[in-house]
């Protein structure tokens, strides 16, 4: 697969959030403001790329040689969990404002399906290491695109009077649905 196709596919066509249903929790959770959305995107991109590289190596260097494919889930998640905790500890020290902004969601990156999902998909798709990096980075960009667009709409909805019963989560989900509906237009682009 050429890199361009990987990029377009991961960002638009098979957008991780809007068509793959991964990472919905942070998508709904940290999208109230554009600025936190941007921060989250950064954090996810960072973690995702590193996690993909590390899990890729674990798979190729440890699991495959020993025929331990069934340990994929557990070893990947262990690696990711440790990694996220590292990022958290470092971030707390290096950039307290970003740490504050991401709040509870930083530990939840661990439980952000995108990271594990992408790590597993990379193996399933049988990509090589460079492709894996491109794939994970563009998936993260796709996540960011969806998240920031969504945050923009939600910020705008803050300014209008949404009916009481729909305020908050319901309307956010409707917006996500309509965004997904729109993104279906990209079908077949690759």
């Amino acid at each position, binding site marked *: 697969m050429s890199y361009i196709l990987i990029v377009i596919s991961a960002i638009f066509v098979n957008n991780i959030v809007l068509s793959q249903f991964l990472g919905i929790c942070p998508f709904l959770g940290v999208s109230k403001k554009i600025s936190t959305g941007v921060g989250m995107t950064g954090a996810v991109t960072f973690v995702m790329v590193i996690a993909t590289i590390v899990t890729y190596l674990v798979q190729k260097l440890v699991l495959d040689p020993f025929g331990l494919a069934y*340990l994929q889930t*557990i070893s990947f998640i*262990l690696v990711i969990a440790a990694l996220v905790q590292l990022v958290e500890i470092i971030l707390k020290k290096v950039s307290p404002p970003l740490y504050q902004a991401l709040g509870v969601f930083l530990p939840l990156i661990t439980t952000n399906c995108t990271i594990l999902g992408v790590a597993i998909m990379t193996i399933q798709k049988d990509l090589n290491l460079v492709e894996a990096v491109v794939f994970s980075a563009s998936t993260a960009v796709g996540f960011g695109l969806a998240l920031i667009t969504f945050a923009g709409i939600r910020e705008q909805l803050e300014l209008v009077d949404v009916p009481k019963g729909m305020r908050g989560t319901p309307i956010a989900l409707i917006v996500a649905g309509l965004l997904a509906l729109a993104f279906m237009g990209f079908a*077949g682009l690759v």
Partner: protein
Amino acid sequence: MAKTESTLKNMVLTLLVITVIAGASLGFVYKLTKEPIALAKLNKQQTAIKEVVPGFNNNPGEEVLELTSKEGFNIKVFPARKDGELIGVAIETMTNTGFGGDVKIMVGLKPDGTIINYQVLEHKETPGLGTKMDVWFKTDKGHQSVLGKHPEKNNLTVSKDGGEVDAITAATISSRAFLKAVRVAYDTYTENSGKIASAQNSQPTAEGGVQ
């Protein structure tokens, strides 16, 4: 309640203990389910082959041939024999021209190439449209069915392209992809028919067994 402190020793020890226990239980369950999983996989393949080429009594999985079509697709050919006699082949074939990308089907051909039956293995077509291919081309209605047709003797393209097969309503693209996959299977089969016949005596490939 006295929490264990976060010293290096404690941390390493705890994680070690937990992972060791986890490893032990996983290894154990793995051993337990290894057989059933393999069986389930084999079953799936056998059932699929049985559906498209009924009546064999060998283990086609053991005799599988891995081929590459002209278009560069990986094609698997499972020879089906009854008492050593080749009664047909089940071909795992594909195209990449579906509405949602790859379409993978298993098609059963008589030795002369006539279509016995097919089964759709994998696709990403739209539910309600392209997905209808799993029964559409078996249904005896209008000019839908391809069963009993021969890719060479019949013009197996959609009527829109001048062929004799009715496309799935509003899913011409999927229909074309389906028919194309059949064609790929047939072409690959005829090109390699010699190999297939001779494969009878060859060693079962590694792929043939359970993974």
